[in-house]
């Protein structure tokens, strides 16, 4: 099984909002679509899911034109929503029914996810004081975070083979973020095809092996995340010493990226320059507490690529 997007194009009048997006997933895993607001990520996702007609290009599932309405797809949209006035149970059963999941199976799944996402008290509230079964709550009675959990539940109820998560962690508190991460990790372990879009770079680094960075509809960087990072080399040096080291930094001609009480981040040309700087510090009897040479973070790569694109 493979998933491939070939030369996807979408324009509104004179404005091209997605310009030739192509990528491929040869097997299960997580693919990241990154970009600033308005970069074309959501439009691309809508085209992939068949909600928007593409002007040109192909979306292939196992080599054939993908027919989303015939597939089992889980989608957590960026513009999330639930019917505010309907009960959670009613709408979850409805979403499951639209995915072809029968009522008893759907109830089983709802109970499982409700327990896992700690939503039992809202979907299956305890009996009232008079012993009568309480009604499932309406969406409008839930906090934003809990509504987001219900939406994740709706996306995963049918145990989809293809999952699209558009900004899954935005607006969540740290506890729920961890809960979401755990669920996503489980889905990945089930050999699913996941497409994830996010502004939270650490999240992408945590889950995704391959990425595409988009800017104003164009692809500005694409490939395996590790290889991309490797191609930049180890140029980020984090140093902490007991004595001031400003004069040695100046002598070595290094650029200070950021200086905090905890550490100083420097930009080096490579490992050789870093080692030469370390030798200088040792030779001058500077007590080195921390000396950490790293590849650039995805955040830095993103800012560099998108920033450069926006300046053009």
């Amino acid at each position: 099984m493979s998933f491939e997007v070939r030369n996807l194009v979408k324009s509104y009048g004179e404005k091209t909002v997605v310009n030739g997006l192509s990528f491929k997933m040869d097997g299960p895993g997580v693919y990241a679509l990154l970009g600033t607001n308005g970069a074309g990520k959501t439009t691309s996702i809508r085209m992939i899911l068949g909600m928007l007609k593409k002007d040109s290009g192909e979306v292939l599932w196992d080599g054939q034109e993908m027919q989303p309405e015939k597939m089992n797809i889980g989608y957590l949209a960026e513009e999330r929503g639930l019917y505010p006035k309907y009960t959670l149970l009613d709408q979850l059963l409805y979403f499951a029914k639209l995915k072809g999941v029968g009522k008893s199976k759907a109830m089983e799944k709802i109970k499982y996810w409700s327990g896992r996402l700690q939503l039992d008290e809202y979907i299956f509230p305890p009996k009232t004081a008079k012993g009568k079964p309480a009604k499932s709550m309406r969406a409008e009675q839930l906090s934003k975070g809990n509504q987001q959990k219900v939406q994740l539940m709706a996306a995963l109820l049918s145990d989809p083979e293809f999952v699209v998560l558009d900004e899954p962690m935005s607006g969540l508190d740290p506890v729920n973020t961890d809960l979401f991460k755990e669920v996503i990790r489980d889905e990945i372990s089930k050999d699913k095809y996941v497409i994830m879009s996010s502004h939270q770079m650490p999240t992408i680094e945590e889950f995704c092996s391959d990425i595409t960075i988009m800017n104003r509809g164009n692809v500005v960087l694409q490939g395996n995340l590790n290889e991309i990072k490797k191609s930049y080399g180890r140029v980020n040096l984090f140093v902490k010493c007991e004595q001031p080291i400003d004069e040695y930094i100046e002598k070595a001609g290094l650029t200070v990226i950021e200086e905090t009480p905890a550490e100083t981040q420097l930009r080096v040309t490579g490992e050789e320059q870093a080692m030469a700087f370390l030798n200088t510090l040792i030779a001058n009897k500077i007590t080195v507490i921390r000396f950490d040479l790293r590849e650039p973070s995805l955040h830095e790569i993103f800012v560099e690529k998108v920033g450069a694109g926006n300046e053009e």
Partner: protein
Amino acid sequence: MKSSELRGTGSVFRFTLIQTVKSKAYIVSAIFLLVMSLLAAPIMQLVKGDGSKKELTETAIETVHICNGLAFLTDGTEITDMTGKAVFSGVKFEAMPLDLPENVFSLPETEIAEAFNKADKANYEKISKQLEEQGSDCKDVILHAYSNEERGITVEVVRVAGGRVGDAECKELLDKVCENLDAYKIKISGLSDADLKLLAYNYTVEMNYLGEDGQISPEEDTSIGSGQFGVIYAIMFIVAMICIMSGTQVATAVVTDKSSRVVELLLTSVRPMALLFGKILAMLVATIGQYVVLIVAILFSNKMTEVLFGIKQSYLTSLIPKGILSNLTLVNALIALALITLGLLFYATLAGICGAMVSKMDELQEALKYFTFTSIVGMYISIGAIIAMQSSSTSMFVKFSEIFPLSAPMVTPGGRIIGVVPLSYALIAIALLAVLDFLTLRFAAGVYEGLITNMGNRLTVKDVIAMAKNKKNKGGTK
């Protein structure tokens, strides 16, 4: 539009229908309509049902005291003949003799009347005092006939307030007395049987043309009567209400999907047209269901009223002219059903498109103006046509309204049922509506996908038409 675009319609239909029927607004309005319908017939019977055909089988009246102050009657026997009113057969009629001057009829005319009035007044006061003394046990009534210059002849039945005699008995007694008085007037007029026969003749008025060939050709009366007007107007009103109610609900449901942002999740499973179709069907069933319940409740209430009031025909039934629905055959019922269904489909699709043009609930009214305008045009043409039918059902305007797609669903079903719309016109109306529905649905299919995923911006009609025309832009604007 492909059949695959309608996959999932059933699920959308069921969910939308159940949620609509479960909503407080629907339950409250349904209960209100149900209660009103159940109470309609008995209330009308109580308020307007005095002239009902209730069969009076017994009476509490024991004695009728006749106070006859009418100068032209010599005694009260002319009005006490109760032939055909068996219920009053055991009732005693006692005429109170008038205390008149001996040579009363030799007095001038004005003084005769004055003498009669004076004697009558004395009688009336005397007997009313007697009846008042009996109080609530009183089973007697006074039949009082008198005349004055202003009101002419007055016949009244007087009973004791809170006494044993009821309204219906008094009414029936009065009816019979008035009937006797009419007969007496004819008797003293000296008319022969031949004169009476002539008076009883019915005649018809006609306006005819004399053609060039010398033949007289009658001008056909194509106007509708008040009964027919009532039926066609009622059907028009119900269809218009269903159109407006279900259309508004479809638009609201579409905007709810968009404003609550659920639409994106739904679109991974169903196509936009399935969403629209499911909602249209659900809202039509919900609205029609309310009206069916209403009509069934009225029929039930009417039947129960007849049973409980012990009457053969309720006041409500008496309002419907006999034989008015004689043209309601199976074929005509199917034609009416087809016209109404196609009409509702058109209006609901139009409302769905209007709903898809906006993303927020508070913008809905603004978007619905196109739907409201169209439905009002259809309704006004229909009302105008039905009013015009009272003069002639063959005028150009009426014929136009019978086939014009906006008014045909409201005018033609009722017109066909009462027999004023020819079959050919009904079939033309069905064909035109089918074409309009096809075009509207094609238009909706063309633009709906883009409209429904369009979040935020409010679209104008110009935008929508441009989306339908420009295939490149098909799929939405941003």
